[in-house]
């Protein structure tokens, strides 16, 4: 289907199904129940899953395929979101031009940064991208304040021209972002028994774009171009003596991943029209690296899983407070309860970053292939047992690896 092989088609269809039905899947607990805090099926969070999914998918095209570790990708997301807000200030609140311009501007910026940074490889490349991102961050905070809004961030205002729209609604407020009239904030709610499901217009716009981005990534992975990118990672010397020029390949991957970041930035401001410099800070770049690694760099589905996992954990873990911990461990004797709560307390709520850092280390140490590799290991564990039984009864089949 769509020019994909059978395996990729089923993977794509699974992702489509998960995305479409996410409002159900992510809301497994009835409203008001103790476990409702683990629900993730509300628009704001679901949008973030998809937006960071796009960001990580794009980052993976660069890092997963070519092995070039960029530590400055958040800059492209930041630039994209500034461009998006400007479109809304100048042109219209329709998100289409905002998103398009975000992608183009981020693409151009990444072309510039990539063209310079890719003259070096390895750690030098990482430092160069980091330097560019930090420069962008510092400039956005200081000199470029007229364009970026400085510390307060870039916001819409009632005095914006909005040539193809209105500066203010008849009620005197700032108009809302929309897709040809469909407001991103619009939601339909469905109450079934104790459950409440929300279907948000903005979420489904993100979903369509994320699925498109995912599809494009699959095509790239399976194309001769993707093969060349893997060759860049594997052996650049051989590549050159094979008559291939690694530079333009790597630069193309860099720009594509920069455009993905721009798309993520554009979508971010389409959902919530506000852009701030902190989105470009290097820890934000570190976060997308973490998502990709955690999910599984170089795999198709890994970055999506990683982004979802981290955004979910961030949201849930940082909401847990001491009171919640006490209700959880309330069944324990008092002294023990206090002790257990004290042990867990540093890791939840404001301590989310501590949990994140520990997860980061554990993954890099024990599971360099991320969640996908973990899943494969578990799957192999289950598959091996029946396979052995089979071997015994039929006699050893030839063990040539027929993957």
């Amino acid at each position, binding site marked *: 289907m769509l020019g994909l092989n059978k395996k990729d088609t089923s993977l794509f269809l699974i992702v489509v199904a998960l995305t479409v039905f996410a409002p159900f899947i992510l809301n497994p607990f009835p409203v008001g129940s103790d476990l409702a805090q683990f629900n993730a099926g509300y628009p704001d969070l679901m949008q973030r899953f998809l937006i960071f999914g796009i960001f990580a998918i794009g980052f993976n095209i660069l890092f997963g395929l070519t092995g070039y570790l960029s530590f400055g990708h958040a800059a492209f997301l930041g630039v994209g979101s500034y461009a998006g807000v400007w479109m809304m200030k100048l042109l219209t609140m329709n998100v289409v031009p905002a998103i398009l311009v975000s992608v183009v501007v981020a693409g151009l910026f990444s072309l510039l940064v990539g063209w310079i940074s890719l003259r070096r490889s390895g750690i030098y490349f990482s430092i160069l991208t980091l330097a560019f991102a930090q420069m962008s961050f510092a400039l956005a905070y200081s000199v470029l304040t007229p364009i970026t809004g400085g510390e307060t961030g870039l916001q819409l205002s009632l005095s914006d021209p909005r040539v193809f729209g209105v500066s203010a609604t008849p009620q005197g407020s700032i108009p809302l972002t929309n897709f040809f009239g469909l407001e991103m904030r619009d939601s339909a709610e469905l109450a079934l028994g104790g459950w409440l499901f929300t279907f948000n217009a903005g979420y489904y716009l993100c979903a369509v774009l994320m699925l498109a981005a995912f599809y494009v990534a699959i095509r790239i992975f399976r194309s001769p171009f993707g093969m060349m990118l893997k060759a860049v990672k594997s052996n650049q010397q051989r590549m050159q003596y094979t008559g291939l020029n690694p530079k333009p390949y790597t630069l193309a991957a860099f720009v594509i991943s920069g455009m993905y970041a721009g798309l993520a930035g554009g979508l971010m401001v389409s959902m919530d029209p506000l852009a701030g410099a902190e989105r470009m800070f290097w820890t934000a770049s570190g976060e997308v690296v973490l998502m990709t690694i955690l999910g599984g760099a170089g795999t198709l589905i890994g970055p999506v899983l990683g982004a979802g996992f981290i955004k979910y954990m961030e949201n849930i873990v940082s909401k847990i407070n001491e009171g919640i911990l006490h209700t959880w461990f309330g069944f324990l004797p008092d002294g023990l309860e206090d002790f257990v709560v004290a042990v867990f307390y540093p890791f939840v709520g404001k301590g989310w970053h*501590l949990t994140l850092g520990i997860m980061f280390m554990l993954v*890099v140490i024990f599971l360099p292939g991320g969640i996908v590799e973990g899943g494969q290991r578990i799957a192999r564990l289950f598959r091996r047992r029946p396979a052995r039984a089979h071997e015994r009864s039929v006699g050893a089949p030839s063990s040539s690896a027929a993957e």
Partner: protein
Amino acid sequence: MDAIILQVLNGLDKGSAYALIALGLTLIFGTLGVVNFAHGALFMLGAFCAVTLSRLLAISHETADPTRTDFLGNPLKVQTPYVEEWFGPEIGGTIVEWSVPLGILFAIPIMIAVGLAMERGLIRYFYKRPHADQILVTFGLAIVLQEVIKYFFGANPIPTPAPPALVGSLDFGVMIGFDPGSIIYPYWRLIYFVFAAILIAAVFAFLQFTTFGMVVRAGMADRETVGLLGIDIDKRFTIMFAIAAVVAGLAGVMYAPINSPNYHMGMDFLVLSFVVVVVGGMGSLGGAVLAGFLLGVLESFASMPQVTNVVPGINQIVIYLVAIIILLTRPRGLLGRKGVME
């Protein structure tokens, strides 16, 4: 002229910190071949050693001061640090005031322990892994360390003053024939610079004049050959890691009065120190020190109003800009050797 000298002096203290951190980074990279993103956290830990010691020394209990009375005529209750009780108010008071310099003694064993624990417990498993993995795992460790500090010390900067005797400024201008007050330089910053210079000299002397240092330098140049000589190079490299940790830690201890320590100061310095290492030349100790001071001074010049009026915002980006230019024109950095990380 006096303005230029003032900027040079202003750049020296920050440059000293860059140089010390970059020196440790280079030592670790040159010996162990590891890109340590947690090195900034060691600097931060050092600063918090100073904070911890000043808090420990200030632990006090309530005593009655018979010489003074409260409004009811009872002896006034005051908080007296134990230290003052043990050593008498005179010496004890001085000890409390001098907590930052004393922090050096306090920090050395702690930093050695942290360094050894880090190397033996984590880093050594990453010698053979790709640089990307090393960056990522130490990045994770840096997050963990700073979050732990944030948990115990809070998110706000903690003012940690220098000893009162060393607060105040030197009228440097008068000493070299300018108008009084033209070049005012705080004593502590001068001390920091001198301290950093001594520390750097000590590290270089150690590497240059001891057998241990000679082996380490040989190992930096060609690890395998040294290994073939039957020398246990790994053990020495572990010790070098601890030394690098101590250097970063002491840089942090002494920096506490200049900038009140906060949990993310390590990360702030780390990014810049990496840039410094790259500018100096990966694996070149002299380059790291030189680039540290150069960039510190350069940053200070770039923040002069005369400069920022012409090129606004240049002070924010000058270091990165220089790094980009150097990397593109001299890929091996200022003093980099051939064959390191290419």
